[in-house]
């Protein structure tokens, strides 16, 4: 994507960026990704995906494993370059938009040689925030996930749930406009999972502006958390469903909601 040789598609793209609604956080335009191994082109992982995610919108990407949902997330994160099409994050190409991004993974990815506090500081440190400021921010967010008492503990001394809460604090400390989440709660046991999900939802609901792309294979989790569910299959968008359950939500009761049941039955067969 270079502007030095303005081809037709580049110009179109540029025009699109200029005219795009400023309420859009992420625009995925006709994106295809094929992983070529040793120069041989293989079956595309994504083909012609179009998706626009508005500011403050919580979108869940669901689908069977291998359907391409993580690849789509990686394309938004700038970890994978689309073979065709383009992605913009807050109006910029992903690699230039990383200051807007927060990232959470299934495994907490805490660095084992940093204590809880310094793990929360990690992203701020990478972005060159001063020591005093990042300490203050980190302490604030550790407090928000009720882990101030654990600030000096090493990751191995924390339970799975605590570790993932440290990861939440690390993510929020960056004050991201866009949260990219790749099955962030998949590794937790059921009880821990619900309490971490609830914590996450509280943090997110307390401020309206953060967009979320949340990859999961768990349809129930997707409906409970998201505003919108995008079902991916064979590298395409198969369904795009608005959830429409009012917020704030209480995860303990959300599955009793009529709309939850409807969406669950509508999509379950396609996920299998």
């Amino acid at each position: 994507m270079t502007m030095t040789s303005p081809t037709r598609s580049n110009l179109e793209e540029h025009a699109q960026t200029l005219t795009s609604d400023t309420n859009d956080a992420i625009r995925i335009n006709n994106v295809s990704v094929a992983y070529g191994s040793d120069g041989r082109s293989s079956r595309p992982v994504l083909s012609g995906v179009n998706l626009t995610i508005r500011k403050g919108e919580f979108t869940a990407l669901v689908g069977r494993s291998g359907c391409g949902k993580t690849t789509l997330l990686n394309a938004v994160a700038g970890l994978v370059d689309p073979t065709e099409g383009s992605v913009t994050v807050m109006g910029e190409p992903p690699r230039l938009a990383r200051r807007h991004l927060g990232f959470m993974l299934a495994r907490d990815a805490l660095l084992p040689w940093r204590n809880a506090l310094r793990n929360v500081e990690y992203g701020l440190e990478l972005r060159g925030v001063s020591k005093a400021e990042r300490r203050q921010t980190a302490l604030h967010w550790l407090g928000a996930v009720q882990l101030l008492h654990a600030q000096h503990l090493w990751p191995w001394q924390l339970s799975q749930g605590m570790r993932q809460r440290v990861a939440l604090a690390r993510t929020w400390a960056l004050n991201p406009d866009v949260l990219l989440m790749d099955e962030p709660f998949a590794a937790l046991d059921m009880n821990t999972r619900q309490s971490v999900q609830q914590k996450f939802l509280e943090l997110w609901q307390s401020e309206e502006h953060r967009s979320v792309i949340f990859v999961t294979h768990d349809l129930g989790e997707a409906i409970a958390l998201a505003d919108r569910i995008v079902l991916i299959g064979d590298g395409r968008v198969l369904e795009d469903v608005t959830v429409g359950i009012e917020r704030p939500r209480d995860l303990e009761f959300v599955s009793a909601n009529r709309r939850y049941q409807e969406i669950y039955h509508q999509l379950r067969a396609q996920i299998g």
Partner: protein
Amino acid sequence: MSRDTLIVRVAQILLGITLLGLWELAAVTKWPDPVLAKSPGQTWSFLVKSASSGQLWSNTRATMTAVLIAWVLAGVAGVVAGVALGLMPRVERVLTPYLDSANAMPRIALAPLFIVALGINTSAKVALASTLVFFIVLSGARAGVRSTDAEWLRLSIVLGARKPQLFVKVLLPVATPAIFASLRLGLIYSLLGVVGSELISARSGLGQLIAYYSSTFRMEAVYGILLLLAVIAVVLNQVMGLLERRLLRWQPPADR
């Protein structure tokens, strides 16, 4: 001290006394040979005499100076080379057969070469010991860098890490335990290389003393110096162990 530790300590002391007793018994019965049969008492009095004459001190210093120089030089070179190879798999593939064959060579066979090239001096000892230390530290550092979790890199890149930051904040800390373990082993091998070189030819050093005393059948002196070398090796290992525990506090106890 817990009860278990106490039992272990007592058993260790008893075993030591038993070994000393067996040694004394062998000396008294002239087993296996009158030349070899020297008692712990004779060995001790040699050590005392040699220490008070200054002979033991000056030779220990000569040996340890070479050990530390070789360890530091080859250690630094090994870390740099190991990290570089860990990050550049293609270069590593090119170099692997050469590195493997160099590392498989019985290094002591290089001693005469170094002595001819560098003279009967500290440089020759350092050179031999370095060839041992370098490869040990190289493979430790390389393995350390390789043990990086892809998720740490993925997260760091998305959070905005640039290449130098990835190196300093992820790759180096990841590699530290393996580098440390190899430096610890490397220190003992440095001692091995230096003493080996001294045995073949040197003007000073504990290895040279062993060569001299065994050629004159002063076996109590040989035993004394061997004991001293064992003590030095144990102390070096303990010091490294302490440093390691201090630096790697973040590891779960089972991994230490």
